């Protein structure tokens, strides 16, 4: 089903709605005075996102969810890099925590999560015989 919201407006609208809900919860919890500081941040973030998404660039196309195959491929490479760096950071954190005799379980969870995610990806993205479909990349 097509969304009635134009692509460029989608994320800012979600940000306004989500941010508004968070602002109201924060207002109820810490007093309505917090809305004075949180409200403008929410609006500024949504407006900033909208302005950035309107530019003629790869980044803007990704922001408004209208990326073509090269931009999708580029985003995938960026996400892969982020995944590798985060996994390496967790592994280093685990070693440092082990050497410092600190609590290991938070790092152990993320190391295990990286392994489980790799296996899940291996299964989910395997090639199915006879299944048609678009793949990004070369």
């Amino acid at each position, binding site marked *: 089903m097509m969304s009635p919201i134009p692509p460029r407006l989608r994320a800012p609208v979600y940000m306004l709605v989500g941010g508004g809900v968070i602002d109201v919860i924060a207002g109820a919890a810490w007093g309505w005075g917090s809305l004075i500081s949180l409200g403008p941040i929410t609006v500024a973030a949504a407006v900033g996102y909208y302005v950035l998404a309107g530019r*003629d*660039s*790869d980044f803007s*196309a990704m922001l408004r969810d209208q*990326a*073509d*195959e*090269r*931009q999708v491929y580029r985003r995938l490479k960026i996400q892969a890099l982020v995944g590798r760096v985060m996994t390496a950071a967790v592994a280093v954190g685990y070693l440092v925590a082990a050497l410092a005799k600190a609590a290991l379980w938070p790092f152990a969870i993320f190391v295990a999560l990286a392994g489980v995610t790799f296996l899940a990806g291996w299964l989910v993205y395997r090639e199915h015989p006879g299944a048609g479909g*678009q793949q*990004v*990349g*070369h």
Partner: protein
Amino acid sequence: MRNRVREQRIQRELSQAELAAALGVSRQTVISIENGRYLPSLPLAFRIARFFDLTVDKMFDPDDEETGS
């Protein structure tokens, strides 16, 4: 891999934005393909070739390994 996208586009007096709109990709992607920085997928390569009424092997020269994605 060398391609004839720029040559064909200029021959038909099209801007990069017009070609991008016709192919359903961004202007940046047309620029990347023209400069040989991005090798299009097979479906896009066919779209480009069909748009210029050429075959894929006439549009993209696999013998020239000068550039890649």
